[in-house]
């Protein structure tokens, strides 16, 4: 590959990455991959990729102009370009474009597993959860509360309203399913699922991975020697998938 051709190819890939990241930022899908607090960093990346692409294209134009000025001009090839390196950077673009984007769901449970307890937090942050309205708590909040309090019966009878996706599990009792959510601290690589069991009489109307809002009252039950909050549902309503599918601790 000639020096200038390699440069042009570099420029195109940089531009491609820039557009790919920018499109994810615009359609809100960045949070399918990373924790929302890293979005500013990605925005910096988009800007910087654009600057680099522009610099490379300017260099290509310059070198072409130089050639036209002086046909016999000998080039100094100060950087060896390995085509392998260039092709490798196409892989992320291909994966991003060819595989239809979908946030992590119950299909990831086989390798990533799921939890009915939330070891994810320090004890102090669960203290303020007492003050939040019980209907405002999400799945992670409930699991934190049950994890860091010895007396969990105090939560029995409180009203809960949580959003998550449906997961059917054989180990649960009849007329029960899990309402689940992925928790992502950094990027999808560290994502893991948490789940609350739900008691509901009309399971047949629900589909695996469908997003639902579950409203009902909390009951403390024990699964595998651990206290787990069960929701005795009064309503289970299908809702559109939330814009941010993961919870960010």
């Amino acid at each position, binding site marked *: 590959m000639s020096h200038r051709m390699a440069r042009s190819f570099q420029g195109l890939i940089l531009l491609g990455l820039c557009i790919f990241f920018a499109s994810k930022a615009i359609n809100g899908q*960045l949070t399918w991959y990373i924790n929302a607090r890293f979005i500013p960093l990605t925005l910096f990346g988009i800007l910087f990729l654009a600057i680099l692409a522009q610099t490379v294209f300017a260099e290509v134009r310059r070198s072409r102009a130089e050639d036209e000025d002086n046909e016999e001009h000998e080039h100094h090839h100060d950087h060896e370009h390995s085509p392998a390196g260039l092709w490798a950077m196409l892989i*992320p673009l291909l994966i991003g474009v060819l595989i239809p984007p979908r946030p*992590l769901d119950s299909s990831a449970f086989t*390798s990533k597993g799921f939890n009915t307890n939330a070891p994810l937090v320090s004890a102090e942050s669960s203290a303020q959860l007492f003050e939040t309205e019980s209907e405002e708590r999400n799945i992670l909040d409930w699991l934190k509360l049950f994890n860091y309090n010895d007396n969990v019966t105090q939560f029995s009878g409180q009203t809960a309203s949580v959003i998550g996706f449906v997961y059917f599990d054989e180990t649960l009792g009849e007329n029960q399913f899990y309402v689940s959510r992925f928790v992502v601290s950094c990027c999808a690589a560290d*994502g893991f699922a948490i789940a609350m069991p739900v008691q509901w009489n009309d399971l047949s109307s629900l589909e695996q991975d469908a997003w639902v809002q579950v409203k009902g009252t909390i009951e403390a039950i024990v699964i595998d020697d651990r206290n787990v909050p069960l929701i005795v549902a009064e309503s289970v309503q299908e809702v559109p998938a939330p814009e941010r599918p993961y919870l960010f601790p």
Partner: protein
Amino acid sequence: MIPAAFFSWLADRLNVFATVFLGIFVEAVPYLLLGTLASGLVEVFTDRDQIARWVSKRPAASSITGAMMGIIFPVCECGVVPLTRRLFKKGLPLSAGISFLLAAPVLNPIVLFSAASAFGWADMLFWRFFLSLIIAVTVGLVFSVEKDSSNVLKTVFDSHEHEHSYKDKSVTEKIRQALLITVDEFFDMGRYLVLGATLAAGLQTFVSQSTLLAIGSGPILSVLIMLLLAVLLSICSTVDSFVALGFVGTFSFGSILSFLVFGPMVDIKSVMMYAQVFKRRAVIYIIAIPFMMSLLAGLLFNYLGK
């Protein structure tokens, strides 16, 4: 006939793979860009003798200086490799460079604050930074025995060859050159990031983490499992503390500490990048010594209480 169930299984696996892969990639690219930019700026704005003058030639002093250099260059493990290679080219002693490579992803202000917000200013933080320093300096000292850097580095930088002079050029011209170097290094190191992310995502797609965690009890096995997880997950050191929080309660202090010390030094993507800069035998040392020292530290904490 291939049953339809197979296709839905394949689609599911592919989805997990793509999401995890892009997760690592999207997260790492800005950090890699920052590291390669630092490398480009070092190339055009410093000259060879300048760096050699800053760093002592004596092994111990040189290793400690190298380990502390992360405070000036706050890079994490994706960015540190191209920068270290550049600093070698600028005459940084081998021992200082190796210590920098291993310590910088932890001993820098950004990671310090991220770890502090996860664990508070507590024991975990102190031991993490202390052990990372000790291990980085130790490996640096081991390499100071080697006088001939061509036994360690893949490319040996001769003082007369390939030395561009940027001195007479204007600042805009210097920045233009720095950006072109940034691009080259981004592609050069980026492919190892891609390869590492592919492996890590593949393992996460097909190897069950819950089984891994389930067998991970007991004082020895728990440390080994956490060390393995540090390598497999390949998370950036700026955020690994938050991930480690997820294991508090399930895992002992010692095993989480070894995860936090070893992970930034060795994981799938960084090993891929090391192999680009160092010869194979050197890469083995860079992996093995931190592995044994992190394992030992984890075991000591597990047995001596904590």
